[in-house]
């Protein structure tokens, strides 16, 4: 079971490599990837250095080109595929069928992974990408219970990568327009959820308000932490009650079920968070490395150490973690 870690810049890449990542995933500095944030991601020189550093340490490098180009921007995605291929990266993580078609035609030997943004939640959907584009791995959305993941892995034509830790998308990835509904820009068409340029924080007599393109997402009182105004983690009123109608700020943490993921044959555990700091990447990578090693050494007696849980909770949204959809009761 491989550990796949995020790197939004060169220091994060080194942090992931130094702390035991089997692979790191990165993106280019534009809207061709799903973490299109100002100041984040890699230019050519940084990729060159990052690849060299990773290779010296035996770590593989994947490049995410996992947003959806409109017709007018398609050539930018082609160029991203070409750049990644020319750098000789270990895999390209793609979501769009057109981009996959191009990559397969232009670079027949390139190793393709289906991104979580491809929204493939069943073995039949994955079979489509395997048959049409010869993908070698699929990353699955955070919507299946552990039992359903097991069934999918058993029937999937390719190895499956699952999310292990990080911010939790509660909607099917690649199928969520909440951000674009409010701002015009979302994960699919812009590479970011709730883009920072639309975010406003405002002290008011009623409390600190967070708004996204003027829509009130949350209001917190003194002593409460105001989270980033992601729509699905806001507080709203439903049937006369105000609360987290969709989900509270929380992060996914699979340490408690790591032995199960190992047993059912997950090929890789993915850590979310290319937008996070190098210190964050270092700490999460270190904990997950220790946990995966313990799990693989003795899966029958694996249990997450309290210290690991504490460390990961301190890095989580709202200092809370959840098993998310892996656990039926969450659903």
């Amino acid at each position, binding site marked *: 079971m491989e550990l796949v870690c995020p790197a939004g810049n060169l220091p994060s890449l080194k942090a992931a490599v130094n702390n035991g990542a089997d692979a790191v995933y990165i993106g280019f500095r534009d809207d061709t990837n799903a973490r299109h944030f100002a100041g984040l991601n890699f230019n050519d020189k940084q990729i060159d250095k990052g690849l060299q550093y990773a290779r010296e340490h035996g770590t593989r490098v994947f490049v995410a080109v996992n947003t*959806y*180009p*409109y*017709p*007018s921007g*398609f050539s930018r995605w082609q160029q991203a595929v070409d750049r990644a291929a020319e750098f000789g990266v270990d895999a390209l993580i793609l*979501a*769009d*069928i*057109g981009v996959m*078609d191009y990559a397969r035609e232009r670079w027949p030997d390139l190793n393709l992974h289906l991104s979580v943004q*491809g*929204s493939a*939640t*069943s073995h*039949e*959907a994955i*079979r*489509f*990408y395997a*048959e*049409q584009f010869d993908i070698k791995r699929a990353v699955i959305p*955070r*919507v*299946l*219970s552990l039992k*359903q993941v097991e069934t999918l892995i058993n*029937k999937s034509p390719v190895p499956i990568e699952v999310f292990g830790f990080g911010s939790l998308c*509660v*909607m*099917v990835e690649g*199928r*969520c*327009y*909440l951000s*674009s*509904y*409010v*701002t*015009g820009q*979302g994960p*699919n*068409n812009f590479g970011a959820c709730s883009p920072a340029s639309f975010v406003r924080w405002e002290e008011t007599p009623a409390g600190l308000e967070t708004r996204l*393109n003027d*829509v*009130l*997402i949350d209001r917190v009182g003194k002593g409460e932490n105001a989270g980033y105004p992601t729509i699905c983690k806001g*507080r*709203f*009123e*439903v*049937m006369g*009650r105000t609360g987290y*109608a*969709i*989900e509270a700020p929380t992060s996914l943490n699979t340490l408690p079920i790591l032995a199960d993921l190992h047993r059912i044959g997950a090929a890789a555990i993915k850590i979310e968070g290319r937008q996070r700091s190098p210190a964050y990447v270092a700490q999460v990578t270190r904990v997950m490395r220790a946990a995966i090693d313990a799990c693989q050494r003795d899966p029958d007696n694996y249990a997450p150490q309290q210290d690991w849980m504490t460390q990961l909770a301190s890095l989580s949204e709202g200092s809370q973690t959840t098993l*998310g959809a892996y656990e*039926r*009761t*969450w659903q």
Partner: protein
Amino acid sequence: MNTQATQAKRLSLGPVLYFWTEDQLREFYNMVADSPVDVVYLGETICSKRRSLNVDGWLELADMLQQAGKEVVLSTLSLVEADSELGLMRRLCENDHFRVEANDMAAVQMLAGNAEFIGGPTLNIYNTRTLNNLNNLGLKRWVMPVEQSRDTLNDFRQDMADGIEVEVFAWGRLPLAFSARCYTARNHNLPKDDCGFRCLDDPDGMLLNTREDDAFLVLNGIQTQSASTMNLVRELDSPDVDIFRISPQSRHTDHIIQIYHKCLQGEMAIDDAVTVLESLMPTGPCDGYWYGQAGMAAGCNAA
């Protein structure tokens, strides 16, 4: 080269996105049989636990509507989680009377190379290369994802393959997201596995307001929709669209179909239609996506 729509423009009725009882569904589709829609999409696309009708029940309705002169399409589930759902999907995909609207790549996989199909609005078709690729596998009609604009559609038209029909989501609360979690059950403090089918209480979904009392979203089981209703009646003369989709709501759908039909026939002034249609929306209007803006924006092309 397919530069513009050729046939007369048609109206379609999308699948019912809410959980209605069998009686409600039968009454609704009896109305539809006598209405001037050309195409009717049938089936449960949101939650496989909703079984007011089983597959045979849907097929029976499909026959009835076909005899009434409608083109009938069977719509598949949008989010597939369990293997049992794939079994039902396969039955739909392998039926030999009606075309199928694929709302997930699993359905595309079942249909590809076997039957002509319609690409539903939840397939991620964002560029011509993707569309043409699926056309080679049997896609004959494309329902554009709701977040795409008229300019994007026009770009598609420049080099999309011949013979693909374009349908747009013209009327209704916009489908915005899907989740493993059932928000209806969550807001009733019930587990999804023991939900009591409370979504039957909300035939147009459950309203979610901001803390400033603005109607914002609608929770429909595992689906999240816009509270505002998309209305593209001003765009019926768009040269790039073949079919305009009306998404069913529990009240006034017959009236909405009539108004769209009259506008298409040139029998009603668009401004008058807008006034009446806005009075038939559960909450307010929106049309931003079509004009390349935030989806919630409204009145982007007001006369």
